[in-house]
C-alpha cells in the first residue's frame, strides 16, 4: 500500500515537472517578449534592456526556469506589472471565489446526476429513460456560459431573485456570497451533471446484473431497497473517477462562467491579465490551475485505493 502511494506520488511530481517545463517552453518559443509587451511598441532600446535585466530576462533559459519553479515552491510567484502586487496574493484572493464555485458546482451536479442516472436505469427503456437521455444530450450540446446567460435572463432580469453578477465578498456575509455563486455554479453544474448522469445510468445497469443483487432480491428485499442499499453505493465508484477527470473541464468552464457573472475568480484574473497582456500572471495562473487539476486527480486516485481494497494489489 505504502509503496503504491510512494510510486503514485513520484508520478505526480514528475507530471508537475513536465507541466511546468511545458508552460515555460511555450512562453519561450511562442513569439512575444514580456518586457516589450509591458513597455509597448514605442519603448526606447535602453529602457527595454534595463527592464529585461530587472525581470531577469537576460539570464539563460535554464536559470530563469529554475528561478521560476524555485520561487513558486516558496510561494513566490513573481510580481504582476498591472496590479503591482505579488501574484501569489492575487491567486490566493481569487481562489477564494473559484474554489467555492467549483465545489458548489460539483455538489449541485452530483445532486442532479445521481437521482437522474438511477431513475433512467431503473426505468430502463421507458419514457423516463429517454427523458433523462434527452436532458443529458441537450445539456452537453450548449455552452455553459450560455446557460449562465439564460439563468441571468430568467432569474436575475426576469424574476429578480438573484443578482445578475458580481460578488459581495466573503466579509459581506456567507449567505450573500453563496447567493451570488448559486447561478454560476448551476451553469457549470448542468453540463457536468449530463456527463455524470450517463455514467451513473450505465454503472447502475452494470451493477444490477451482478449476482449479489439477485441474492438481495431472493432474500426478500424490495426492488427499491435493493436499488438504494446495494446497487447505488456500488455504482458510485465510476462516478467518482469521472468527477476527477472532469475537473479540468470544470476549471475551463469556470473561466468562462466567471466572466459572464463578473466574479473576481482565477478565470476572470486570467482574462483581465490577457487584456493587459500581463504574461507573468497568465503563466502563473495557467500553471497553478493545471497543477490543481493534476493534484485533484491524484487525490481521486488515492481515494480509490481507500474505497476499493482490490485495487491495492495492482500498480
Amino acid at each position, binding site marked *: 500500500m505504502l509503496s503504491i502511494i510512494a510510486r503514485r506520488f513520484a508520478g505526480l511530481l514528475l507530471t508537475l515537472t513536465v507541466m511546468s517545463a511545458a508552460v515555460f517552453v511555450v512562453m519561450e518559443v511562442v513569439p512575444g517578449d514580456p518586457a516589450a509587451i509591458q513597455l509597448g511598441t514605442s519603448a526606447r532600446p535602453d529602457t527595454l534592456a534595463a527592464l529585461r535585466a530587472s525581470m531577469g530576462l537576460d539570464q539563460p533559459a535554464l536559470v530563469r526556469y529554475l528561478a521560476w519553479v524555485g520561487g513558486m515552491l516558496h510561494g513566490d510567484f513573481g510580481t504582476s506589472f498591472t496590479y503591482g502586487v505579488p501574484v501569489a496574493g492575487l491567486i490566493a484572493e481569487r481562489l477564494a471565489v473559484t474554489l467555492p464555485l467549483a465545489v458548489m458546482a460539483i455538489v449541485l451536479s452530483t445532486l442532479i446526476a445521481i437521482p437522474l442516472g438511477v431513475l433512467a436505469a431503473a426505468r430502463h427503456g421507458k419514457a423516463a429513460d429517454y427523458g433523462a437521455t434527452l436532458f443529458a444530450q441537450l445539456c452537453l450540446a450548449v455552452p455553459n456560459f450560455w446557460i449562465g*446567460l439564460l439563468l441571468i435572463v430568467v432569474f436575475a432580469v426576469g424574476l429578480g431573485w438573484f443578482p445578475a453578477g458580481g460578488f459581495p465578498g466573503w466579509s459581506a456575509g456567507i449567505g450573500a456570497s453563496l447567493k451570488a455563486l448559486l447561478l454560476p455554479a448551476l451553469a457549470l453544474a448542468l453540463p457536468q451533471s449530463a456527463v455524470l448522469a450517463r455514467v451513473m445510468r*450505465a454503472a447502475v445497469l452494470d451493477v444490477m446484473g451482478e449476482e449479489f443483487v439477485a441474492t438481495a432480491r431472493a432474500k426478500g428485499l424490495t426492488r427499491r431497497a435493493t436499488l438504494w442499499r446495494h446497487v447505488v453505493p456500488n455504482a458510485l465508484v465510476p462516478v467518482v473517477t469521472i468527477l476527477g477527470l472532469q475537473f479540468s473541464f470544470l*476549471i*475551463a468552464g469556470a473561466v*468562462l462562467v466567471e466572466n459572464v457573472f463578473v466574479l473576481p475568480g482565477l478565470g476572470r484574473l486570467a482574462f483581465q491579465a490577457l487584456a493587459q*497582456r500581463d*504574461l507573468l500572471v497568465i503563466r502563473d495562473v495557467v500553471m497553478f490551475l493545471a497543477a490543481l*487539476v493534476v493534484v485533484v486527480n491524484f487525490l481521486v486516485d488515492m481515494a480509490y485505493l481507500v474505497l476499493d481494497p482490490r485495487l491495492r494489489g495492482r500498480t
Partner: protein
Amino acid sequence: MSAALRRLPLLLGGLLTATILGISLLSLVWTPETPTRMRFALKLRPPLAQGLLGTDHFGRDVVSMLMAGAWNSLSIAGLAVLLGASVGTLLGLTAAARGGLLDSLLMRLADILFAFPAVLSAIMLGALMGPGALTAIIAIGVFMVPVFARVTRSAAVQVWARDYVLAARAAGKGASRITLEHVLPNVSGQIIVQVALQFGLAVLTEAGLSFLGLGVAPPAPTWGRMLADAQTYLSAAPHLALVPGIAIGLTVLGFNLLGDGLRDLLDPRRGGG
C-alpha cells in the same frame, strides 16, 4: 429497442450537421443582408420587425450574422480537429507499433496535455500571439492531440494482437507497412467516430474562445462574440442572447448524435443510450 429508434441518432445527427454545413457554405455566396453592415437607425429591432430575427445593437441583421458565424465556427473547428486528428493518429499509431518506452512516454505526455484546461492555455497563447483564427485553431487542436492519440493507440494495440498481423509479419512486412496496410484501415472507424464527437467539442470551445475575444478578429461575426455583445442588452433584447446559443446547441447536438450513431453502427454490441 426497435431498429428504427436505434438509428434515430444517426439520422437526426446527419440531418442537423448537413443542414448547418449547407447553411455555412451558403453564407459564402449569399446572406439576406451583408452581415457586417451597420444600420444605426435600425438597431435592436425585435424578430420579424426587421429581418427574420431582428437586428443587433449596430443594426446588423441577426440572420445574416448567424449564417456567417456558422462558417467561421465550422471552419475553425474543422481545422482544429484536422490538426488534432492527424497529429494524434500519427502518435497513436507510432506508440502502438513501437511499444515499449516510446509508447509509455507518449501516453504519459498525452495524459499531461489532457490535464491542461484548454481555455486557459488559449488565453496564454492569445496573450503571446495575439487573438485570431490561428491562435484559436492551435489552442483547440493541440488539446485534441491526446484524445486522438489515446483512441488510436488503444484500437491499434488490439489490431496488432490479431493473427493476420502475425501472418503479415511472418511474410516479412515491416512495422510501417503493417501499420499502413492493416492497422490504419481497421482503426479508421473509431477515429471517424472520434472526429464527429470532437467536432462538437471544438465548436463549443471555439464559441467560448470567441466569447472571450480570442476567436476570429472582428468585424467577422462569430456565435461566441454575438453572445458576448448580447450580454450588454439582456433586458432590452434577450432574443440576441437566445438565438446564437440555440445555433451552437443544434450544431453540437448534431455532431454528438452523429458520433453516437456512428459508434452504434460500427459496434452494435455497445449503445442503448
